[in-house]
């Protein structure tokens, strides 16, 4: 079973990279641009048939390693 994990900085945490990308896109003429946040993306595959159990495992992986809960949030989606 395969999942995507998206890790982004928490809403209130400064995202210097997103900020620079945002300014550059604006300078390139994308006037409608509202905001950009940069994050990380993982594809995680596990040997587990029960989706609920798999998600619990992946949540554990996130909290133990993939995500720094101090500054980051994450989202798990089955793909």
């Amino acid at each position, binding site marked *: 079973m395969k999942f995507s994990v998206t890790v982004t900085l928490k809403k209130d945490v400064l995202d*210097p*990279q997103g900020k*620079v*990308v945002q300014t*550059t896109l604006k*300078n*390139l003429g994308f006037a409608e641009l509202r905001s950009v946040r*940069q994050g990380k993306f993982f594809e995680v595959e596990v040997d587990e048939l029960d989706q609920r159990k798999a998600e619990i495992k992946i949540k554990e992986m996130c909290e133990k390693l993939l995500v720094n809960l101090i500054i980051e949030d994450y989202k798990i989606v089955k793909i």
Partner: protein
Amino acid sequence: MKSSVIVFPGSNCDRDIAVALEKMQFKNQMIWHKETTLPKSDLIVIPGGFSYGDYLRSGAIAGKSSIINEVIKAANSGCLILGICNGFQILTETGLLKGTLLRNKNLKFINKDVYIKVMNTASRFTSKYQNNQILKINIAHNEGNYFTDKKHREELQKENLIAFKYCDESGNISQNSNPNGALDNIAGIFNLKKNILGMMPHPERMVDKFISNDDGVNLFSSLIN
């Protein structure tokens, strides 16, 4: 000879290269990235550093700046262009040089003196060196792992476009003497017309025996003629 050093927000080797150029008798000007025209120059240097913090990808944002269009125009009309470290990364982002620079294979920033071998002295940048001369030169980067596609790799070999390769003290080119995982130990390349050189090592750090050595001097003295 007139040189221009392009300064991006986050460039940090701009002063170092200016000092080296002036020491080698270039008439140098610093060009702020917001300028829309370039003064007439024989050499344009894109210095090392972390333009725009190297956020997104190294060199990616600088590659979209207004002054870069002028650099591309100058390059196409044959002006000499030297990109060092972040400058090399920017040149690959603009397409003036092919290939790209990936993260170092050990995933860490590396700053140390390494050895490189001069692979081609038939260029405006390297004529004062001996063929196969070994230089001791400083590297300082996170993304110096050169990579390119098969076709370009063949072209690099066929057209003799590799300027420098990482080697050991006695000139052996092997994985052991490859600090960052670069394809074929590539440390610097030319474009097809050889008016553009991109290199990861810092020649401007090697022009003062007092601080390091003078192995970088001949690169600048090749250019001044």
